[in-house]
């Protein structure tokens, strides 16, 4: 009888498809993964400690750099936390602008994430290029309003830094026409593609109980069949005013996560349509004129969370009454969604683990902070 040995190998910290500086310590039995241990921390840059020596406002541009795909969503979560702590009101129009930006962010994130995931499967560049193309158009809109494509730094306490310019809505309306075309195209290209099915169906199954026990959120959790979306479960901002559905998967494999993301893009577009309709009637300006930017919140703590495109993004702030947070903690969805990677990969082939990793959609800037 032939005896075989298990072998320990490292993938990373700089494997091209690991989406950043990330290491996976694999124990393999032939091609089969017996054990996988995600190792992170290579991108640690002292984000949370740094935030404690900065004033509240100074932290805003640093939150852009957490999940650099979704700076608007990060800004939103942080602004909500500070507003909760300091008791700042946000005018209605500002809320609409905020949600508009965040939903655009969700579309661009999913377009990019699906592209990268399929890239990991070996569909080299074509689907990714389609995704990047759509993302690019949204980034142009962000540049128009905030001055930067990715590091938007657009939110302020009590609103946003400046109102959207006149040409924004017409340009966005044009983009709204293009969006379904892109989503249909992506589905025609890939939804029933045999190769994609072979690489994703039944791969990386995360059963619902496991997902819940790890605290997984976002499309990964919904892919596992749990309709938990913070926009519905605990509506923040003005999300209770919009009609939209929560897509869930039935199996919890890579394919479900893929489908859930496509559907989420469609739902985000639905929200955007409602925003365009309601925005002209919204009262107030783009920022609460009474809100001070150099806040000095009363002693206390606050936790605010949003449904970022990757999952529950939360900021926990403790104030000692000064101008700087006494404690600043980020609940990063990428980080928590990455922890069950070992469970998701156990039993699959080495070639599957990059696909599974891609389907979680992580950004190392957020994982390591």
């Amino acid at each position, binding site marked *: 009888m032939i*005896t075989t040995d298990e072998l320990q190998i490292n993938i990373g910290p700089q494997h091209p498809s690991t989406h950043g500086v990330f290491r996976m310590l694999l124990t393999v039995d032939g091609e089969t993964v017996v054990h996988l241990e995600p190792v992170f921390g290579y991108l640690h840059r002292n984000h949370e400690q740094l935030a404690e020596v900065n004033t509240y406002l100074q932290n805003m541009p640093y939150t852009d750099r957490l999940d650099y795909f979704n700076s608007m969503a990060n800004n939103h979560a942080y602004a909500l936390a500070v507003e909760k702590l300091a008791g700042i009101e946000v005018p209605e129009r500002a809320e609409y602008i905020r949600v508009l930006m965040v939903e655009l962010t969700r579309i661009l994130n999913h377009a990019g994430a699906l592209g990268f995931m399929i890239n990991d499967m070996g569909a080299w560049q074509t689907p990714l290029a389609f995704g990047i193309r759509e993302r690019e158009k949204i980034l142009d809109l962000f540049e128009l309003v905030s001055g930067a494509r990715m590091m938007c730094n657009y939110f302020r306490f009590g609103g946003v830094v400046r109102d959207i310019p006149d040409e924004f809505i017409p340009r966005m309306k044009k983009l709204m026409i293009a969006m379904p075309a892109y989503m249909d195209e992506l589905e025609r290209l890939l939804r029933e593609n045999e190769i994609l099915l072979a690489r994703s169906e039944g791969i990386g199954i995360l059963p619902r109980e496991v997902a819940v026990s790890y605290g997984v959120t976002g499309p990964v959790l919904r892919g596992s069949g749990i*309709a938990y979306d913070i926009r519905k479960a605990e509506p923040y901002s003005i999300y*209770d005013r919009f009609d939209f*559905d929560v897509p869930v998967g039935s199996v919890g494999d890579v394919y479900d996560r893929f489908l859930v993301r496509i559907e989420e893009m469609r739902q985000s577009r639905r929200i955007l349509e409602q925003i365009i309709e309601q925005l002209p009637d919204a009262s107030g300006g783009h920022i609460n004129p009474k809100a001070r930017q150099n806040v000095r919140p009363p002693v206390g703590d606050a936790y605010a969370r949003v449904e970022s495109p990757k999952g529950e993004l939360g900021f926990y702030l403790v104030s000692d009454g000064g101008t700087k947070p006494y404690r600043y903690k980020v609940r990063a969805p990428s980080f928590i969604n990455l922890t069950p990677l070992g469970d998701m990969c156990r039993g699959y082939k080495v070639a599957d683990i990059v696909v599974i990793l891609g389907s979680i959609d992580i950004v190392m800037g957020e994982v390591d902070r």
Partner: protein
Amino acid sequence: MSNDTLTHSVTFTEAPAALTVVVDPTPQIARGSAVIVERRRPKAAGWSLLQGLGVVVDHWRKSFRKLDDPTQIAGTFTTEYPEERLPLPEAYRNMPILLFDDATGHELCTSCFQCQRICPPQVIHMTQAKDPETGKPVPAVSEFIIEYDACMSCGFCAEVCPFDAIKMDHDFELSTANHPSLTVHKAGLLRPVSYYQSIAPTFWAEAEASAYKKLEANKKRRPASIGIAPQMIEQVKAAHELRDDQQEADSPPAPVAIAPALDAGRAATPATASAAPAASDGDLPTDKAARLAAIRARNEAKKAAEQAAPAQAQPAAEGAATALTTPDAPLTDALPAASERTAPPAPATPDAPLDEKAARLAAIRARNAAKKAAQAEEE
């Protein structure tokens, strides 16, 4: 190793058994429902591959034409940088710059340290200027350093500056092999106001009035030679001499007419050559026409406000060119902006400045629209 390790061998690689996870018909969701995404199977083997290939072929076919309709997704929309450039939105921010007044060379910065305090990575450093005689600090900077290499382009400095002295530049081609050159000192940071006006007309129009009002107040608190942009010192000196000569020649003391001297200086500052509103930019006729319209509109408003000095508005409305070419023109109003400042304080009706501002904004919008239309025509 022993055979024990083999007991790890895997049970659920054959996934189908696990495919039957049950979904619980999900909770109550307000204004929407939980929808289970449909897992489709291809209709026939190979069908979906062909379908996908169709998408790719369609894109390939359309890639031969240029796409400028954003509602479409197929086509080439590449911009051939650096030959072609996308227009940058006004809000675009890259690195901060300091502004100085075109007409007098005065820096707008008063060394209030607000920007230094707010800068998150702490890359702004400055020294306040001192009166050479009394040694007392005056509202001007003697040195101002920004470490461009560590600036995160957050734009906070421009947001907090109460004097509109620091603004975000649009120039993004800063790469260099000479790293120390990215620690930029005051002379390298200073740009004339007209340059900023050219890259962000509406933003500047909103800030202009208060910025100049504050500058006037601060100039009074600065000794003569302090707070002048280094690149302007020569021109300012020449202009002062010119003025002195004039004063000797004819007695009525005229406000400083340094614009002619500045014109030369502007040509020497490369960044501003195209930017200065008064400089000859014949390449943009619509632009110029719109600007003239703006000046006219403003002068109308001014005329309504002050009947006393009708003669003064006229030369300015004629356009800057005349004022520039005649060195001894009285009361030079070479720059549209300057004309406003040197005008005697008008005992205006309270809503006149508002009208004026509205008119200016309207003119700027008209100009932008004209520019866009011109661009569209070119294409």
